[in-house]
């Protein structure tokens, strides 16, 4: 059997294991181990397995993951969200659909200190959903705005997904963080515009809140100050070269811990919950990356990704058409498979292809991050929708998916803007770094 045939069979075996509900990381390790044993030797495969498990787990580069997750968890449990929500409400609450806009704006703020979409949805949902229910907001709009706002957690830096891609593709974390700032802001504005448009067309969906004067607006900013300080500390420190990414994560989590303690919101139980959630998420993510490395080694030995890339280049098809196919694969895959798992599995295949086609790796990373993030709100496995559903059990899950669907137009617009104006992602890192 040729190495390429072995790699294709290895991929099919991987998908079979995943379809049988074997955790994605286990499936990648198993398929990669068997593939390496076939293509190299059993002894070599065992050596790759043992050294990679130790090597990845003890990699300083990966130690950034638990610390950034910890920062998000401390922020989640320390009551930062309520103050952010109140501040955002003073600024946009008066607009049509003001509470939904408030939800999106405060989600964007929280995303600036938390890199997870599920944590952003969960934390925002607990505050925003009861408020919107009180003001008789349309259930599809209220739940949809929470679920879609949560996706900003991944797009706006710091982002766990960007860290994972950076580690897997050996890119600079700070470069990816800075590149995704403008797309994240554009997406936020597009979400706000969607709420505004929906509520101007049909004011019953979300009535505006009471008027606030400029003094109230300015005073409310103090509620956003701690978030701003944390964001500037982490991103600014990284940008200025004061910190390595791991140190930025540690400084951020220490800062979030202090805020929680000073405000008296972080009880011992909440502290324990934040720590256990962090180690659970970190173990899942690090094992996923380890699996991807072991499986990626098998694919590299087979040379399939490079030959696939060469073959696609030789077809002389416009590279935008290839990109479109890749994006559709991510979009459809993200509908059925956990977005993070799908991303980690496919990076060893599609990243060399994007390189061979001459796409800027930073730009390409931001594009696939946007596309895979949509998987968090698309049926049937959109994780954010299930989180929101858990927070509002009286609302049918179909209603939440309906509420989210209109916001997907904003995603498509943002993607198109990014494709036609790559500078949206590339200008800041090129001019700042």
């Amino acid at each position, binding site marked *: 059997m040729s190495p390429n045939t072995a790699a294709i069979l290895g991929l099919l075996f991987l998908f079979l294991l995943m379809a049988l509900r074997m955790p994605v990381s*286990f499936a990648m390790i198993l398929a990669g181990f068997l593939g390496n044993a076939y293509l190299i030797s059993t002894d070599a495969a065992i050596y790759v397995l043992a050294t990679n498990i130790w090597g990845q787990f*003890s990699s300083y580069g990966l130690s950034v993951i638990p610390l950034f997750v910890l920062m998000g968890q401390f922020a989640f449990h320390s009551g930062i969200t309520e103050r952010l929500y109140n501040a955002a409400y003073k600024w946009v609450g008066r607009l049509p659909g003001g509470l939904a806009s408030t939800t999106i704006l405060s989600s964007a703020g929280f995303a600036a200190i938390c890199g997870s979409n599920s944590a952003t949805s969960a934390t925002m949902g607990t505050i925003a959903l009861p408020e919107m229910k009180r003001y008789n907001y349309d259930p599809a709009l209220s739940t949809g705005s929470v679920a879609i706002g949560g996706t900003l957690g991944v797009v706006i830096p710091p982002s766990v997904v960007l860290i994972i891609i950076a580690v897997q593709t050996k890119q600079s974390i700070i470069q990816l963080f800075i590149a995704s700032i403008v797309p994240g802001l554009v997406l936020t504005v597009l979400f706000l515009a969607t709420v505004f448009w929906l509520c101007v067309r049909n004011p019953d969906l979300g009535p505006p809140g009471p008027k606030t004067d400029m003094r109230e607006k300015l005073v409310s900013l103090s509620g956003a100050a701690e978030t701003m300080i944390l964001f500037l500390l982490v991103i600014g420190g990284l940008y200025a070269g004061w910190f390595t990414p791991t140190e930025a994560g540690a*400084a951020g989590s220490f800062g979030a811990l202090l805020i929680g303690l000073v405000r008296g919101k972080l009880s011992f139980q909440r502290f324990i919950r934040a*720590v256990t959630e962090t180690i659970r998420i970190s173990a899942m993510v690090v094992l996923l990356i380890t699996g991807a490395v072991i499986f990626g080694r098998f694919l590299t030995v087979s040379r399939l990704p490079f030959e696939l890339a060469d073959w696609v280049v030789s077809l002389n098809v416009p590279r935008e058409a290839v990109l479109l196919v890749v994006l559709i694969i991510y979009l459809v895959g993200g509908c059925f498979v*956990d977005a993070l798992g799908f991303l980690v599995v496919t990076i060893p295949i599609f990243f060399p292809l994007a390189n061979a086609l001459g796409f800027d790796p930073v730009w390409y990373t931001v594009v696939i991050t946007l596309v895979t993030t949509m998987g968090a709100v698309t049926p*049937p496995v959109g994780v954010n929708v299930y989180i929101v559903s858990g927070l509002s059990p009286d609302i049918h899950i179909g209603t939440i998916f309906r509420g989210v669907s209109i916001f997907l137009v904003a995603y498509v617009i943002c993607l198109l803007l990014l494709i036609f104006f790559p500078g949206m992602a590339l200008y800041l890192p090129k001019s700042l770094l």
Partner: protein
Amino acid sequence: MNFLDRLSLILNRGLTFVAGLFLIAMMLVTVGEMVFRMFGKPMAGTIEIIAWLAAVTTAFALGYTQIHQGHVAIDLFVNRFSRRTRAMVDMLVSLASAVLFIIITWHVFEHAGVLKRTGSLSETMKVIVYPWVYLVSLGCGGLATVLLADFVKSCRQAFNLDGGRGQRGSAGERKGGG
């Protein structure tokens, strides 16, 4: 709850506790080093310490993550199967996973042994590394125990040994971390 279940719960509860302590230690050591550096007294070898703490934090949390169905998996297809077929599939998958992690535990343990015999030292601090590798092997062993307990549970379900009690509550609980 059978013996294996109890063993895996007790073992992983202990490992999770240590993982939590190591996580906080990671944060404090990193912040401490930054403070020392600010005062012109950088601590040599912090990078190595953080990397080892991270290794143990992650490895010791593997079993806890599996107990809470936290390793990302795809429920979509298997959920369409009948309960019995699902239990059969779970049985095979947990057996394969358990065997995989027993192999990993053993070979990481052997790798630690090799580092011990060869007297391998870390690059900056020039201290022994192998104890950390043994700890990572222990964490993988914690996961293997959970998977073995899962295997026994799914066997009972597949062959209806517990009269329909104790369904696996995994579906829908699996979470992504993105």
